[in-house]
């Protein structure tokens, strides 16, 4: 049972445009969400997070939106740059629980 779903395995975006990566979850107990970025042959690196008490969190070019009623979050990257080409994982946890539940990832390719 995949509790965190990233339904788009891949996404291609022109350099300078907006990249939007989506993530859906089914467990209403999740109350903290994270996005990780992964380059080939490297470990995931933390990008941005959001608590369920917020609906938006922004850090530079990266913004995460959370829609609790729809159990949906999205990551916006503006403007997209070639170095953003990577696999992006969303993850969710229940506060007090050590387990992070990851989605299957979306491969983002930025076209120069």
């Amino acid at each position: 049972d995949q509790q965190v779903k990233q339904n788009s395995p891949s996404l291609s975006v022109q350099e300078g445009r907006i990249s939007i990566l989506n993530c859906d979850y089914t467990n209403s107990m999740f109350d903290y969400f994270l996005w990780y970025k992964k380059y080939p042959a490297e470990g995931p690196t933390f990008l941005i997070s959001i608590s369920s008490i917020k609906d938006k969190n922004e850090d530079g070019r990266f913004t995460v939106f959370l829609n609790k009623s729809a159990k949906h979050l999205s990551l916006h990257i503006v403007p997209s740059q070639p170095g953003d080409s990577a696999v992006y994982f969303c993850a969710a946890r229940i506060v007090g629980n050590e387990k992070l539940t990851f989605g299957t990832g979306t491969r983002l390719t930025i076209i120069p």
Partner: protein
Amino acid sequence: DAGITQSPRHKVTETGTPVTLRCHQTENHRYMYWYRQDPGHGLRLIHYSYGVKDTDKGEVSDGYSVSRSKTEDFLLTLESATSSQTSVYFCASRAQQGTDTQYFGPGTRLTVL
């Protein structure tokens, strides 16, 4: 980023042999984790540790054991490797309880023939 290293980075072994993967962190983080990454599954938690000698199971712990005798080291052991354990293994660490971020190591690619 936290200083997390994993060894070996690549290993090929045969079915039935024991394998130990090592994770070392220099940040004095209390929490450490082992994940495996497989196509179509994302990352899945195998075991985690919340302190020296304190460990607990994750969602895919069957066939794996862990040990943590020092804060900086977290070992993952496959007692008798099987082909289904062919995967990329990631270690992570985190400083304290709450919403702090997990920092990941570079990964170990394990192939069981």
